[in-house]
């Protein structure tokens, strides 16, 4: 019958929408929806079919979609309708749990937008070109290694900002001194003629 060609290519798309159905993140791994227009139409359809229900799986446009929502975010993983639904679930759970750890359980739109690079890197570690690369959230978080050490984000910004501020002020002070001395030189050079 329509026996599945054994393949590692499992995931067709990973999507994150906000609660207006707007795309926050979308990565399509094959040509099911080649143009941006078709992709947006598909996202609209997905959102309208799923945002009111709390169930976690649906069949849409001939594709299996597993999803999960949290506060004002909707996470979707899309695969072929012949795909093992539990594999897709594994990807979805891994994505959600990784983000949850990275955002300190604060999985909502604002926190995500402040950490977009973390999201990009995490998805890159979970799925590569449609192949499931890693399914263990611990590993993903470890590999993304956002900021390397375990310092809370806000604190770190403060320290970093203060160091940069210190450095800049030092540099500018140096410049002022430099400029000052230049001015004096110029002044001394030109003064005899005037």
């Amino acid at each position, binding site marked *: *019958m*329509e*026996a*599945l*060609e*054994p*393949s*590692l290519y499992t995931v067709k798309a990973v999507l994150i929408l906000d*609660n207006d159905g707007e*795309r926050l*993140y*979308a*990565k399509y791994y094959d040509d099911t929806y080649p143009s*941006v227009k078709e*992709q*947006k139409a598909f996202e609209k359809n997905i959102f309208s*079919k799923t945002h009111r*229900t*709390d*169930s*976690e*799986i*649906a*069949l*849409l*446009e*001939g594709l299996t979609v*597993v999803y999960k929502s949290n*506060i*004002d975010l909707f996470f979707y993983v899309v695969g072929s309708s012949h795909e*093992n*639904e*539990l*594999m*897709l*679930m*594994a990807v979805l759970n891994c994505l959600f749990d990784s983000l949850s750890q990275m955002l300190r359980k604060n999985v909502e*739109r*604002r926190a995500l*937008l*402040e950490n*977009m*690079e973390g999201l*990009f*890197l995490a998805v*890159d570690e979970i799925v*590569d*070109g449609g*192949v*499931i*690369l*890693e399914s263990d959230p611990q*590993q993903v978080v470890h*590999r*993304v*290694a*956002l900021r*390397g050490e375990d310092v809370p984000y806000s604190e770190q910004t403060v320290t*970093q900002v203060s160091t*940069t501020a210190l450095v800049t002020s030092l540099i500018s002070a140096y410049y002022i001194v430099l400029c000052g001395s230049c001015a004096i030189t110029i002044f001394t050079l030109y003064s005899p003629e005037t």
Partner: protein
Amino acid sequence: MIKKFDKKDEESGSGSNPFQHLEKSAVLQEARIFNETPINPRRCLHILTKIIYLLNQGEHFGTMEATEAFFAMTRLFQSNDQTLRRMCYLTIKEMANISEDVIIVTSSLTKDMTGKEDVYRGPAIRALCRITDTTMLQAIERYMKQAIVDKVPSVSSSALVSSLHMVKMSYDVVKRWVNEAQEAASSDNIMVQYHALGLLYHLRKNDRLAVSKMLNKFTKSGLKSPFAYCMLIRIASKLLEETEAGHDSPLFDFIESCLRNKHEMVVYEAASAIVHMPNCTARELAPAVSVLQLFCSSPKAALRYAAVRTLNKVAMKHPSAVTACNLDLENLITDSNRSIATLAITTLLKTGSESSVDRLMKQISSFVSEISDEFKVVVVQAISALCQKYPRKHSVMMNFLSNMLRDDGGFEYKRAIVDCIISIIEENPESKETGLAHLCEFIEDCEHTVLATKILHLLGKEGPRTPSPSKYIRFIFNRVVLESEAVRAAAVSALAKFGAQNDDLLPSVLVLMQRCMMDSDDEVRDRATFYMNVLQQKQKALNAAYIFNGENTHCAPSLNLRALVELTRLSVSSVPLANTPITEQKTEFAPVATSKLPEKPGPTRQDIYQEQLAAIPEFQGLGSLFKTSEAVQLTEAETEYVVRCVKHTFARHMVFQFDCTNTLNDQLLQKVMVQMEPSEAYEVLHYVPAANLPYSQPGSCYSLVRLPEDDPTAVSCTFSCTLKYLVKDCDPNTGEPDDDGYDDEYVLEDLEVTVADHIQKVLKPNFAAAWDEVGDDFEKEETFALASVRTLDEAVGNIISFLGMQPCERSDKVPENKNSHILFLAGVFRGGHDVLVRSRLALADGVTMQVTVRSSDETVVDIILASVG
């Protein structure tokens, strides 16, 4: 509460989304700070994030601007900020297709991939492989091989997956890495194992033996990764299917053993694989079904969904195997996930008893509007299957279907409903009127042309034979007024059928036709004119030939029809003047009608043969090819020479085409022909030998046979056949033949010519009209006893294959639990005589058969009866 929070969030403005109003040009402007020294990692990181965000939103980047940004980005490799570097890799991957000269980062990436920093290595490999082409691949081959067997899992996985992506591009290079992949497959890391297995399979999938060995190895050694197990199961089931191995094969045992795996994912994959296997017996299915049954009560929606969806598939073929799960399925029909509920109900509809149908239908109609179109189609299919199983329930179903038809839905969904209603109408005569009424209502407001024409065609076919045909006329004529050309044309054809079958409606139909003749579309006008002319003749035979059976599709190619119009305008108008009797005139029409019928768009198999035969000088002057039979094997499949025969029937001759294949690589055959010894008065006129028959290149030789003219009833004959040829031994390697050869021959199996070779199948959509049209001038009837036949089905099958005629009015399907049946067959006999057979069958001890044959030629009637006896 959540809602409220959001409102406030939105009101606070775009500040909540720092990326909301990003301008591409502004971001690219900002990207200039990449060139500043020293590099500010935080700001650069933020800009890279913005660029990737824009790409992600589908923003289009021109080649120029992308290249510029890309080159600026390459400077960032000087920074040692981890996250920044990682974002550079991402940017490289995202821009690989839009920017030019991306390969300039090759050396930086190669350095990172072989460096000390493990965090960089995996991603660097993936980025590198993304920008590498076939020529560059050679240069990094050494590093890739090392990376595949690296001890760090993320490095090994990245290398394996990237290799897999590159198989499409340069199979030959990646193939050389098989040994490394093999080594990686025995890794302790579950993902590395999975990726290695996937790569190995992709490299070996064309070599069945290698795949089989690989499976053998991994199924024995056992794997850790559930993903890898799923992959193994898929490979195993594919191999099982390809080799058509029985279910006692060790591969099947392996799949079955996976049902006891501790990972649900693997268990489900195994169950699903077993369910999807062709010809699985109920006993083999049982363990798979019972694990699926367990999953039905899982707290995870995805697992319940997967289980019930698979059970639904089982129920299509083996409803009884699923009956054990009925209780679990009952619990799912109120599931909050409507997809699960729908699947549960449709499965129950297939497995449950007749008494539960009403209850289930009520349940499903309560939420049918909430489910997606895909599932609505599933529901309709379940109903369709149900109607065949419980014909008495058709009124409930019909009601339900008509409600669904009124709801919103896409084309696929509506088409499924219409098909379902049509099949109910065809199966249950008593549901015809309600069904037609629902369909009439539907086309009043139907946006799908295909469906509207389909329904109009059905109305034309079934409407005139209902007790009150007049009520359909209004619906049909409304279409003529309101719809597009295709629908209007179909409506005109439907109207004509009413006019032709109901004398009291004829005057009003003619008035309507008159109006259609003023239509703005050519096709509609032509059809109206044509039908008007035919109907005005008020001759049953003409009606039958041109309205019921002549043009038999609702979307006939218009050119075809227009040609017919021209043709009949002349001949029809000449009929009353000449005052010729119908019978005589009919012979003039018959060839026209029949030659039109087999016409299909594109060349058919017969057309291709006709062309081939016409190219052979000996066969010119035989006339047009009447019928080509299916090929008959005259040798066993595994012999030295393989010969099959195709029989071509012409008006007075037959041509036998022998397709021969020489399977001996040390022989060249020359002057190959098949000598035929007929048992009857058939005369072999000519042999056309095949000049050369080299090893494994098929060639054809022909024999021309004249059919006996003095005895037209001799339609069957047996030929004993011998293959004669000149053998030249040759070198198996070069194919160079020796100079000398010797004659040899090879005895083939006997070839039979039967009555079926003289009859071409013709479908008469309205058999009764065709029956009347042919008339009872040459009607004969005889009764036979078929002692050896046990069932009506068998008898019907035998008659059809023996006579080679087309069953009409779906009479080839014998309703269950009946002990009598009527079979209608139609065909054209060699020479262009219509022949119709009505065969009444009654089941007693054996089967008793009363055959009535009508034809336009007496000899044909005799031939048919003689051959049946």
